[in-house]
């Protein structure tokens, strides 16, 4: 309820400020689009089907990039989390590369993979992999040794320990890592689509700058926000359902 009211209040403030600016002419009204103008841009783009295309292109890139990163992070995380020699070998490399801001490498991806889909997907994979890998590894390493002892004394084999204890015990941490990775994917797709893309929400925003259409910039940004919070909400709901046992008291 409070959330809905806060959203409504935000829209009212936005409308008041932009319409107020229009009548007072504090700055050029075109620089501060009203909610109506933003919706109008969305409607006109939706009418010729291009809005759908941009959304689809961006979603597909996020899905592919994030999906590839999630699978790699899970596989490598399990290996590193459960097998100490692998951890000792992989950790220093990860810790060396991880602090570099991913955007610094974006031009490299364009050089390597060209202007097509591959460079965008690869960049999202690269960016989202590290936080997910670190989070997954940490939650696997944090599994309480007493739980493992309890299961071993009930006769669990190594494989059963992994399946019946390590995975469920680490699951809360793994889900959080995946959610963080997804948030990051939405974050970086804009950057990837700013550079040499001919479709996608990031491209739409860039187009708004080039053709001087601030309403289109704001619309692109809002769409990304809505898309992100929708998927995040879905992931949160799935998380709550899967981890019901933690919430009960």
């Amino acid at each position, binding site marked *: 309820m409070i959330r809905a009211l806060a959203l409504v209040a935000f829209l009212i403030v936005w409308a008041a400020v932009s319409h107020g600016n229009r009548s007072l002419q504090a700055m050029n009204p075109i620089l501060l689009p009203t909610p109506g103008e933003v919706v109008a841009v969305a409607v006109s783009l939706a009418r010729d089907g291009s809005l759908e295309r941009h959304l689809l292109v961006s979603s597909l890139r996020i899905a592919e990039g994030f999906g590839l990163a999630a699978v790699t992070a899970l596989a490598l995380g399990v290996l590193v989390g459960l097998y100490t020699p692998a951890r000792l070998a992989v950790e220093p490399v990860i810790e060396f590369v991880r602090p570099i801001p991913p955007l610094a490498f974006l031009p490299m991806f364009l050089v390597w993979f060209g202007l097509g889909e591959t460079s965008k997907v690869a960049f999202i994979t690269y960016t989202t992999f590290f936080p997910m890998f670190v989070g997954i590894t940490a939650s696997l390493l944090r599994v309480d040794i007493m739980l493992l002892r*309890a299961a071993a004394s009930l*006769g669990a*084999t190594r494989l*059963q320990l992994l399946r019946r204890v390590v995975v469920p*015990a680490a*699951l809360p941490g793994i889900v959080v890592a995946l959610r963080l990775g997804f948030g990051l994917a939405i974050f970086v797709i804009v950057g990837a689509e700013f550079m040499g893309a001919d479709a996608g929400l990031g491209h739409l925003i860039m187009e708004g700058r080039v053709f001087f259409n601030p309403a289109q910039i704001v619309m692109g940004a809002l769409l990304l926000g809505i898309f992100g919070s929708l998927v995040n909400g879905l992931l949160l709901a799935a998380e709550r359902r899967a981890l019901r*046992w933690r919430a009960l*008291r």
Partner: protein
Amino acid sequence: MSTVGVGGAGGARVQIEGVHKSFTLDGRSAPALIDISLEVQTGELLCLLGPSGCGKSTLLNIVAGFLPPTGGRVLVDGSPITGPGPERGVVFQEYVLFPWLTVAQNIEFGPRLMGVPAARCREITARYLEMVGLSEHATKFPVQLSGGMKQRVAIARALANSPSIVLMDEPFGALDAQTREVMQEELSRIQRVEHKTIVFVTHSIREAVYLADRVVVMTSSPGRIKEVFPIKLPETRNRFAPEFTHYESEITRVVKEEVAKVHE
């Protein structure tokens, strides 16, 4: 005699032969247990008693197979142990239930690992739920239970796997005094049915005299066996009987000598 359960009731013999254990701290090796030799008979409840830090939990962890001894060995029915195994059930002080499983799922964890068919798992679970008085809480999760209830689940989980030996590491240590006595009575009642071989670690002398067939008093660190007291009391014990208090004061005297050494 039990009708359900994988291996049924009954215990096994545990032989602890010349066990030594040292831990390495800052590059120096410090002894924790010195030359422990002990035989636990089939169906016997043996209490390990001693001041904190004397190594009684370490000894239990060695018998459980969680820690390798530095020297000596542990035999179960004549075969040396090499790690944890389902014939040695463990009940931990901090319960260590699987928090993502319900009470019933926790109890059937062991039988399910062994591939016991689902219908039989349900029978076993129902039996042990009833034994520990938690039939109405089968579908709850551990976070919803009190400490005493959690420990009942932990005991039921260990017993449902039909171990011949149950190792209990201060299982009632985290409970309040009243719950603790109720749980002792419960365990003693269960043991009269199940006749497991039980090694029970405690630092409560009253608890040891109430439960044990034999009480083994250990020295302060590094732990050795100081004295063994066979408790010749009837199966159903009265904490206020003169014989009971006699054992209590006798053992208290021996334990105090060791506690005093810690403070010297």
